């Protein structure tokens, strides 16, 4: 009995080790994508105006348009892209486990993340803002001491709030929509996230308002797997083309025109 059990365990362990130590892929992502005939991009679905889902169930937003643009550059067909919904928490694991080829999902470039992914040149500058109920007296981070502050698990604000307002009690959620529900239901006194999403949420929800001065501005980057320089060079070249051919400016106007005065240009 124990001999059988031991040999089964040994076989399982061997199989596991073999799977884990096999190279993730001998060919580059760009080659894989071209062979496959479609790009698989991780985008947000709860993050206006970068990635949301419209009433018809279609992915829309700035990042989604960038993904379509990449598909057009690769295959001359902007629909040759599969959009996979990701969250701040799972997007890097999705990339690492090859579920997606590229993250176009409001990834703030940080030193920690640089250790595990390859970042493109910045394509957006984002700081953080505070979302509170209309009637709230909160005006800045200083007022959040002793308050319950919703943040997203895996988003940079989790650490930012911990450092800048250690007296706040952080309540962490997986998705933006859950944090907003918590705020509306009185489970949190404030919700801290990227300025652009807070501004959009304040505009869409009459019972909420954005307060505070933008803090800790940092750039967004597109991310590919660590060490994949060929693919990241391609991404950077395409981003530059989007600037020179006017696409970037068009997308900026399309998505950010009404909150433009609050935003920092990269």
């Amino acid at each position, binding site marked *: 009995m124990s001999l059988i059990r031991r040999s089964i365990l040994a076989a399982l362990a061997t199989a596991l080790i073999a799977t*884990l*130590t*096999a*190279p*993730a*892929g*001998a060919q*580059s992502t760009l080659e894989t994508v071209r062979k496959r005939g479609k790009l698989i991009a991780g985008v947000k679905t709860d993050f206006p105006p970068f990635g949301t889902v419209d009433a018809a169930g279609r992915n829309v937003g700035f990042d989604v348009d960038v993904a379509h643009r990449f598909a057009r550059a690769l295959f001359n067909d902007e629909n040759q892209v599969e959009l996979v919904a990701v969250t*701040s*928490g*799972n997007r*890097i*694991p999705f990339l*690492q*486990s090859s579920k997606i080829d590229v993250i176009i999902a409001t990834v703030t470039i940080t030193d*920690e*993340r640089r250790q*595990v992914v390859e970042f493109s040149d910045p394509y957006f500058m984002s700081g953080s803002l505070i979302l509170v109920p209309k009637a709230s007296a909160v005006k800045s981070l200083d007022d959040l001491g002793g308050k319950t502050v919703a943040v997203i*698990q*895996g988003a940079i604000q*989790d*650490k930012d709030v911990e450092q800048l307002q250690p007296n706040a009690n952080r*309540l*962490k*959620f*997986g998705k933006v929509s*859950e944090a907003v*529900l*918590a705020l509306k*239901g*009185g*489970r949190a006194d404030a919700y801290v996230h990227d300025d652009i999403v807070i501004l959009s949420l304040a505009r869409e929800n009459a019972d909420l308002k954005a307060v505070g001065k933008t803090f800790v501005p940092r750039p967004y980057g597109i991310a590919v*797997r*660590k*060490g*994949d320089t060929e693919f990241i060079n391609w991404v950077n070249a395409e981003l530059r083309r989007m600037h020179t051919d006017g696409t970037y400016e068009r997308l900026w106007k399309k998505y950010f025109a009404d909150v433009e005065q609050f935003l920092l240009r990269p």
Partner: protein
Amino acid sequence: MTAYGFDWAAVVRGLPYLLEGAGLTVVISSIAMVLAVLLGLALAAIAQAPGHLARRLVAAYVEAFRNTPLLIQIFIVYFGLPQLGLKLSPFLSGLAALVLYAAAYNTEIFRAGMEAVPQGQFEAARSAGLGELQILRYVIVPQAVRISFPALGNNLVSLVKNSSLVSTIGMVELMFVANDISFNNFRTFEIYGAAAVIYVVIVLTLTRLLRAAEGRLLRAPA
């Protein structure tokens, strides 16, 4: 495209936090277990009452909670009820959903156990002059619990694992902590692997305890 390099030191660094989360997993699961067993037993007994009403009400409860995802129940209690004016703390929200969900299964498990007690036992108890409640208390429930025990044990194991879903409402239990650590250090395999091992330890401890309890039950006189 290199092979994944393991970093087991990440587990060591994360261990105190993981164990803290495991503590809450044990606490919320234990309380939920006791309440779900009591509630399940009570509802199964109520369903035995004469007339259709009690049985139908219990059946409606069982169907409602057994046929909907636990995650939806957690979200309704945590996000939905405050809109109706009932705001439970995150702990109580998670606990309430876990109890209601597990108790629905327990009700069915105990009901089956009670119905498996031979009809002759009722008749014998009645002819011995016991009242209905006495029959339930001294004759039916002790036997029903023994019959139900293996199925009950399975459901309690599920309860421990299902408690991971309260991570979605900001409860800092084991699953939440595993997310929290791996979302920041990206050592997905090591951290979730460590959390899985801790779950195994918790569940193995529980099954040992259940087996000991079952042994005592079987030895005890009726």
